[in-house]
């Protein structure tokens, strides 16, 4: 019986791994193909079935004048906007979540859970509902087509995720820890910063991972709220598309854009496997 169980376990893990890896293999091989190798039926093995070329990749880094799209600027824009917005969301979200977890708020019929739900509800609305208000809001501040404007909008989008994860995390941190710190002589701020916060790094890492993923992959707001001065990576990649779909450079762009998320996932995964995050995720 344990043998069968082990067999089934590995069987499904292998199948799942194929599902996950296959698109990557497909994208990697396509990124080294040219027009003829892509349109002339399925080919898989480089040098034998098709002649690898770097054309797909070079388009990404050539300036527009040479027929390229030069993703380096948008790449760093995306990194800057995502990291800044995630960082601010985590800091504000953690503080808000701690307050919601430890103190009782009441305004009429609105209580802590309603406030938490209000934060989460920001993610329930379809993004298109928010597009016009955001557009008017940023234009009134003169922040359309700017990094600062995008950061502001992303904070609105990412903070609910941070609050949601961190409220749940703090609710699992026994209240006695804070109380003990108070008894040991901390004031409430010291109790938070000296005792609760160091224990909350795992939760903040998970919240950070989600913020980075959701911030990094956003296309919709990056597309609507920017025009020419500032561009983010997803918008730039979509701009590659033309009447003849350039599968080779799209594949290369997809690989380049997914790389940072894979790196972040590997870093956080080390903490995940240590069991440190179990409380934050379960």
């Amino acid at each position: 019986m344990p043998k069968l169980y082990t067999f089934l376990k590995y069987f499904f893990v292998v199948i799942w791994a194929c599902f996950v890896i296959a698109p990557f293999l497909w994208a990697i091989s396509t990124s080294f193909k040219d027009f003829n190798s892509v349109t002339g039926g399925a080919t898989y093995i480089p040098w034998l079935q098709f002649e690898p070329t770097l054309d797909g990749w070079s388009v990404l880094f050539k300036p527009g004048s040479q027929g390229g799209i030069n993703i380096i600027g948008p790449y760093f824009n995306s990194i800057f906007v995502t990291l800044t917005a995630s960082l601010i969301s985590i800091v504000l979200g953690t503080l808000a979540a701690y307050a919601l977890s430890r103190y009782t708020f009441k305004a009429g019929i609105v209580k802590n859970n309603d406030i938490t739900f209000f934060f989460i509800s920001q993610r329930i609305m379809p993004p298109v509902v928010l597009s016009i208000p955001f557009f008017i809001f940023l234009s009134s501040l003169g922040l359309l087509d700017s990094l600062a404007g995008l950061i502001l909008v992303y904070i609105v989008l990412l903070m609910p995720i941070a609050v949601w994860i961190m409220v749940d995390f703090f609710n699992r941190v026994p209240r006695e820890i804070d109380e003990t710190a108070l008894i040991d002589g901390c004031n409430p701020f010291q109790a938070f910063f000296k005792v609760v916060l160091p224990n909350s790094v795992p939760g903040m890492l998970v919240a950070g991972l989600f913020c980075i993923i959701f911030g990094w992959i956003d296309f919709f707001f990056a597309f609507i709220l920017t025009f020419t001065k500032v561009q983010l990576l997803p918008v730039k990649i979509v701009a590659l598309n033309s009447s003849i779909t350039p599968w080779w450079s799209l594949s290369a762009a997809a690989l380049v854009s997914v790389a940072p998320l894979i790196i972040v996932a590997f870093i956080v995964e080390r903490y995940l496997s240590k069991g440190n995050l179990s409380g934050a995720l379960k």
Partner: protein
Amino acid sequence: MAKIILENIAHTYEPNASNPIFALKEMSLSWADGGRYALLGPSGCGKTTMLNIMSGLVNPSHGKVFFDEREVTSMITEERNIAQVFQFPVIYGTMTVFENLAFPLKCRQFPEDQIERKVKEVAEILNLQDYLNNRAKGLTADQKQLISLGRGLVREDVAAILMDEPLTVIDPDLKFRLRRKLKEINDKYKTTLIYVTHDQNEAMTFADNIIVMDQGEVVQAGSPKDLFERPQTTFVGYFIGSPAMNLYECSASSKNEISIGSNSFKVQANINNYNSENLKLGIRSEYITVENEHTDNSLEADVIEVEDFGNYKLVTASFDSFRIKAKVKRELDIPSEKVILKLPAEHCCIYEDNKLI
């Protein structure tokens, strides 16, 4: 260190409700400096609320708290200088054992050399000296609880150490040693210790003074002997002692004679209100003796069961429709059918409306 006085304290968690439920009903209590107290009562009787009021984690909705002459009712926790140990170990997981023990002193800005000396001293008392540089996270549950305890002990000047069922997670052998250690610490430093428990044996062996609570009220405060011999209410009689006190509804026939069913007994109480319909007689099974023939205050009962506990025998018998339990010496031969039991008048407690007369 200080004497702690609770003056007309009461607490409800819903102060704005029209008919609030009180977790703690109005009471006044004082805890002598250097005393060793146990706060005993069933779960949910208000023990933890009372501790939290003393440590300042809860602000009482009524009444005042004094440390000596100083009123501290609205003083915040960190200024009260009190130590509290919770039921489950609370450790600062990111710190080492040394840092954990040093934390209360660091927060109060003690000089480094004093911190070092004191932490080492406490670590020695608690057998933690070999772990000082380990991360607190990796220790076992009972070692973690020792750290919680240690953080209470490093400060010599605390007003009191409040312990909320602190030995629940600790195995019985270590529990026994720790209780002894706590007693020693109390003798040595004269720190007031207040120990919350629902285990009567723990309370009886640990404290000089036991405060029994039920449903938000203090029902009796006194020495273990008082609680055992003269329970002030039927609740205390039932709650303290194993087996629980034998309790029977009875009626009074004169000032100091009562009858239960067809049996009548002399008692030492002065029953003024003979007509009361709510009289009870209580007697500890330890004081009931087995007799060979009828004497004063004896009754004949049918033996149901005799259990041998090694150091004593527990006889369960019935008379009329009542059950009676008697704890007797194990050498004694108990007849298998009928037994004559004597209820000595000096040990019979009479309760009117569940309160001792």
